[in-house]
């Protein structure tokens, strides 16, 4: 293995960190330079993520022999040092994050990056936090990267601050700070009981615990799960979500579509590893944690989340809130599938996860455009347009005397695309098909695969009712969002009053088209993609390889 490959896992963390630092040193006026640094960083992240994903597949069997690679930061061997671990699921999530960040970045160049300071630096830090949370093989670093991504998300949510964003931002920050405190309690309790923070070291130690300690460990795992479920948007911890996503500016909401999936990822990873501890514990006859109870809990929480999402979808009057509720529905479906814990369901669920992130990301950016078209007619040349910017004084603490000039959102700059309304209508139709899971796009394939696996599982299984319930709720959610989206679509695109055709620049329309095209690509290549997801799911179900690879990591000291 060449030295170059060995250091690849750290690239998705170091590059955005360095880029953010460099961008902070450049002044607001050196916008071209900032954008250049940010775009180089994002392209490098995308390339590194794709390379990491490729290295975990069978295509390069001699690099990481079994699809898992570990990188010891600082050269200390695991479990004493801190490790980054890359496996198929991690690689997949890294690519997903890089793609959505790239789309949001390009989309922001049209307007949003100029309405407040430090958009690009914050976006880089968010990307770093998300990448780190996916890569880390250590519970405490999971907390640290969660904090980094949350701190960046606070800044991004408040970006272009107006009253609405500040009010919602206050709630968002308080909820997430409380969640982080729970995360800390869980992490430290697990350390106190098992004496390790390394995820790979955890299962064996958890399996060897005494009965009293095992109860504490279970409590710690439950507290951790509450923190992750808050991030994942699980009912009843998700009342912050629709308002937050609706208040954020369009590109920010698009990257936030990935954030809920960080919570889902953490649950998948911990579930996979701690689940293996249960298997070990069963072996020596001292099974205490009842995984059925935990998983059953997830299943019912998933149903409640989907129910909440369905009702919210039907009740939402604004498109941006509606898309926020569809994020909740997708989280709920994933939680239900995780709760059922039926192996053939996992691969379709991962397919659904990827497709729904791409689709909701595109949808949020599209929502930003439609909001412009149906805003009350623009008052002539005033700043009545959306963001009540920070007063010029707001920039002084950042070393900028005067706020840089912000062009009107519909100003005659940049290259506009022709037939803006037709483009928006077309993209809206695609997004609706993707989000509701209607044929023929990738949303349909994902849901069809989930339903097919569930119906197949329902034949004769003792939990047939639960599987049928999954089928029913999934179909109901699709129907509800179809009804709601059709209603809003008719109001948006078929009513002629109060509409003014916006100028859509290539920069803002392009990313939406890119994400939708990727979903179409997922549809066309559904076979190979699904096979990849199946191998990913298989590696999640047999975490032994992950554990052995990490614990065999040699330090360089």
């Amino acid at each position, binding site marked *: 293995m060449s030295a170059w490959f060995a250091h690849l896992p750290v690239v998705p963390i170091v590059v955005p960190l360095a880029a953010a630092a460099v961008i902070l040193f450049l002044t607001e006026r050196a916008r071209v330079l900032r954008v250049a640094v940010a775009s180089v960083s994002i392209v490098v992240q995308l390339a590194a993520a794709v390379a990491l994903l490729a290295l975990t597949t069978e295509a390069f069997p001699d690099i990481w022999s079994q699809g898992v690679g570990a990188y010891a930061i600082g050269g200390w061997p695991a479990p004493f040092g801190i490790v980054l671990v890359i496996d198929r699921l991690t690689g997949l999530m890294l690519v997903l994050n890089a793609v959505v960040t790239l789309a949001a970045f390009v989309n922001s160049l049209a307007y949003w990056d100029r309405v407040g300071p430090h958009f690009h630096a914050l976006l880089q830090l968010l990307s770093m936090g998300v990448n780190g949370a996916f890569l880390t093989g250590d519970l405490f670093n999971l907390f640290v990267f969660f*904090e980094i991504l949350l701190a960046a998300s606070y800044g991004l949510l408040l970006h272009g601050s107006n*009253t609405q964003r500040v*009010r919602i931002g206050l709630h968002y920050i*308080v909820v997430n700070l409380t969640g982080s405190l729970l995360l*800390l309690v869980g992490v430290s*309790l697990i350390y*106190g009981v098992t004496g390790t923070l390394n995820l790979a070291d955890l299962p064996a130690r958890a399996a060897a615990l005494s009965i009293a300690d095992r109860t504490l460990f279970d409590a710690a795992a439950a507290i951790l799960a509450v923190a992750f479920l808050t991030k994942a948007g699980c009912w009843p911890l998700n009342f912050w979500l629709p308002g937050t996503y609706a208040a954020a500016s369009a590109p920010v909401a698009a990257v936030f579509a990935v954030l809920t999936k960080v919570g889902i990822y953490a649950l998948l990873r911990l579930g996979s590893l701690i689940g293996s501890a249960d298997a070990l514990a069963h072996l020596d006859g001292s099974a205490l944690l009842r995984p059925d109870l935990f998983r059953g809990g997830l299943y019912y929480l998933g149903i409640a989340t989907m129910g909440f999402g369905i009702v919210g979808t039907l009740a939402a009057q604004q498109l941006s809130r509606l898309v926020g509720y569809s994020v909740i529905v997708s989280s709920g479906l994933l939680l239900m599938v995780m709760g059922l814990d039926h192996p053939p369901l996992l691969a379709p669920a991962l397919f659904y996860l990827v497709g729904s992130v791409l689709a909701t990301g595109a949808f949020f950016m599209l929502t930003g455009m439609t909001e412009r078209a149906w805003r009350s007619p623009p008052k002539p040349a005033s700043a009545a347009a959306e963001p009540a910017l920070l007063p010029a004084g707001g920039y002084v603490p950042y070393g900028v005397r005067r706020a840089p000039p912000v062009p009107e959102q519909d100003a005659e700059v940049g290259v506009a695309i022709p037939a803006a309304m037709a483009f928006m209508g077309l993209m809206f139709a695609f997004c609706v098909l993707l989000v509701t899971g209607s044929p023929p796009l990738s949303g349909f394939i994902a849901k069809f695969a989930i339903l097919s696996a569930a119906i197949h599982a329902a034949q004769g299984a003792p939990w047939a009712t639960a599987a049928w319930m999954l089928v029913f709720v999934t179909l109901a959610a699709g129907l509800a969002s179809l009804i709601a989206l059709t209603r809003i679509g008719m109001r948006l695109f078929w009513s002629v009053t109060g509409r003014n055709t916006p100028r859509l620049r290539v920069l803002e329309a392009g990313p939406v088209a890119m994400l939708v095209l990727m979903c179409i690509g997922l549809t066309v290549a559904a076979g190979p993609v699904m096979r990849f997801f199946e191998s990913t799911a298989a590696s999640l179900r047999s975490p032994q390889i992950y554990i052995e690879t990490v614990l065999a990591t040699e330090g360089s000291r």
Partner: protein
Amino acid sequence: MEALFALAIGVLTGSGVWLLLRPRTFQVIVGLALLSYAVNLFIFGMGRLVVGRAPIVAPGMVADAAQMADPVPQALVLTAIVIGFATTALLLVVLLAARGLTGTDHVDGRESG
């Protein structure tokens, strides 16, 4: 010592949760601060409470893990304090911005009732 320690965490958590549920932003931020103190003490306690056993290996001394405090929770608690401090500072700025923009210190940005 354990009982006193547990009592301190309990009182801090109780006061913190109560303040967190109050309608004024200042109360909420003080509540969060108290909660984070409680959590920091909790992390510290997870290393087991011992007195006078610094985790330092002096030259010529035989290192014996049983005779030392666990250094990992101490490192964790330092990190948690730094992160908590930064996020509280950020929240203070947002609190002031919300007060300036909405004209009220109610968490919802408007007086209830």
